[in-house]
């Protein structure tokens, strides 16, 4: 299942990329599973997504909980808690 990943702010800087196209294994079906999948990459990904890192997620530009399900073609964005206004 192919999805588009986007990273913003400190997360984008930590990972050195603003996003990528990924082909996920079928068992990676939720935002929480995707996060764990990214942790498995190790290095900067393990640091950015592992443990107590405060990471928010949006699917197709709507904020979601970790239990949100993914489908092919989704735009999945990860970012730190927002600080606008």
């Amino acid at each position, binding site marked *: 299942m192919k999805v588009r990943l*986007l990273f*913003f*702010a*400190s997360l984008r800087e930590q990972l050195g990329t603003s996003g990528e196209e990924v082909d996920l294994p079928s068992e990676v079906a939720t935002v929480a599973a995707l996060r764990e999948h990214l942790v498995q990459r190790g290095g900067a990904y393990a640091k950015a997504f592992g443990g107590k890192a*405060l990471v928010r997620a*949006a699917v197709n*530009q*709507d*904020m979601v909980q970790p239990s949100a399900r993914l489908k092919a073609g989704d735009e999945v*964005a990860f*970012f*730190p*808690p*927002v*600080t*606008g*206004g």
Partner: protein
Amino acid sequence: MKISVQRDDFDAGTEIRKLAGDGSVGAIASFVGLVRDVPMTLEHYAGMTEREITKIAHEAATRWNVIDVTVIHRFGELQPADQIVLVVVAAGHRGEAFAACEFIMDYLKTRAPFWKKEHRAGTAEWVEAKASDDAAAERWAKEE
């Protein structure tokens, strides 16, 4: 309803006058947020920012008897004293206008995908989210 996420500055007076309407508006409340102390860069998630702010403005319009809303939020490089955000609410009476204006700002701070990076003395640091901002937004949920 006007929602704009833009690099350019805005004129609050012009935006307020635009909401004066045809005689049904009895009160216009506005809020302008400014850059304090240090230069900053504001990053945002283009597309989602407009969507989130539109949702928040619609929610305010369903809670209070609001006639019209304007929200302008800037991004990019900003200097101390620069304007960042403008919220203008037109309503029949002041209570509704004040409440809706504050509600929109409180939710915008916790929901709209913007991130501030402060530049001071050769270093740049991302601003951390404040628990007090979450508390300000949650206060509205409790009042339901």
